């Protein structure tokens, strides 16, 4: 079962995703994983990660740090693919791949990530992907930002296409784009 969740920032996407993932893992009686996508580069990042870990305390998540390629998780001895994986967020994965810290940027990052994410979604028992809806700005961005928005939309569309349920979170209301899942 694959879920894809998106919407504007700070309106409850992560909390919804955590609830869905937890419920799915519990109902199936399988492990619950949190794929941590943030790659810390300074103290501020490390403090944020610490806060996130504390917030997830008691939920039963096992944290897997993977900021670049979730495909790497598919071959790990300590990872049970029969589990449920919360990937928060696609936005960070693309950012890490397109603008890697201390490495040259890769403007084809979305094309590179698409098959990886689709393979991951297919290989695991349950996956919940969280992304960010950054497509209704009226500003005109620089070429790299525009390429990033375009790339994220490309990944969003690919994941939404294969997902069993697509949920848009908007001001506390959840819009379900595909039917047939537990709401």
């Amino acid at each position: 079962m694959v879920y894809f969740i998106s919407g504007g920032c700070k309106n409850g996407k992560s909390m919804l995703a955590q609830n869905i993932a937890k419920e799915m893992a519990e109902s199936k009686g399988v492990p619950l994983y949190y794929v941590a996508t943030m790659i810390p580069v300074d103290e501020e990042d490390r403090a944020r990660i610490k806060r996130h870990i504390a917030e997830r305390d008691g939920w039963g998540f096992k944290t897997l740090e993977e900021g670049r390629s979730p495909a790497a998780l598919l071959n790990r001895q300590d990872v049970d693919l029969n589990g449920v994986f919360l990937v928060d967020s696609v936005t960070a994965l693309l950012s890490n791949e397109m603008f890697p810290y201390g490495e040259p940027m890769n403007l084809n990052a979305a094309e590179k990530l698409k098959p990886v994410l689709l393979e991951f979604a297919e290989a695991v028992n349950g996956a919940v992907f969280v992304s960010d809806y950054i497509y209704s700005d009226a500003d005109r961005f620089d070429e790299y930002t525009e390429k990033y928005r375009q790339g994220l939309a490309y990944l969003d569309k690919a994941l939404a296409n294969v997902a069993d349920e697509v949920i848009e979170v908007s001001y506390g209301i959840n819009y379900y784009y595909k039917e047939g899942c537990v709401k």
Partner: protein
Amino acid sequence: MILIFGGAYQGKLAYAKENFQIDEKDVFFCKDDLAELDTSKKVIADLEKFTYACVAAEENPVERLDGIWHLLEDKILIADDVSQGVVPMDKTARAWREANGRVLIKLGKRADQVIRVFCGLGQRVK
């Protein structure tokens, strides 16, 4: 008249092609330096660029549309929603953001069908 709107890169034109049996030759693509609409084709896409061109030329896009509704009755209009980000620093972009919203309100009222496309998935809202 059918209105298809949504954020940038959401697959609005692809949705129109898939659901309304049209292809590229049926589409007029608006340009952000052309305050004119070609109504000879079935589909008018990138309408937000027309509204931008109008605003840049200090014209009111809603008034421009008011003169040609009869030509738009059987059209599919596709537009970006640019209303949900940070208020732009640029004066023209600020005016565009508002004008585009007013255009979409008017189109939403007049259209027989309104579809919002989110991550490639269309949802009929009217």
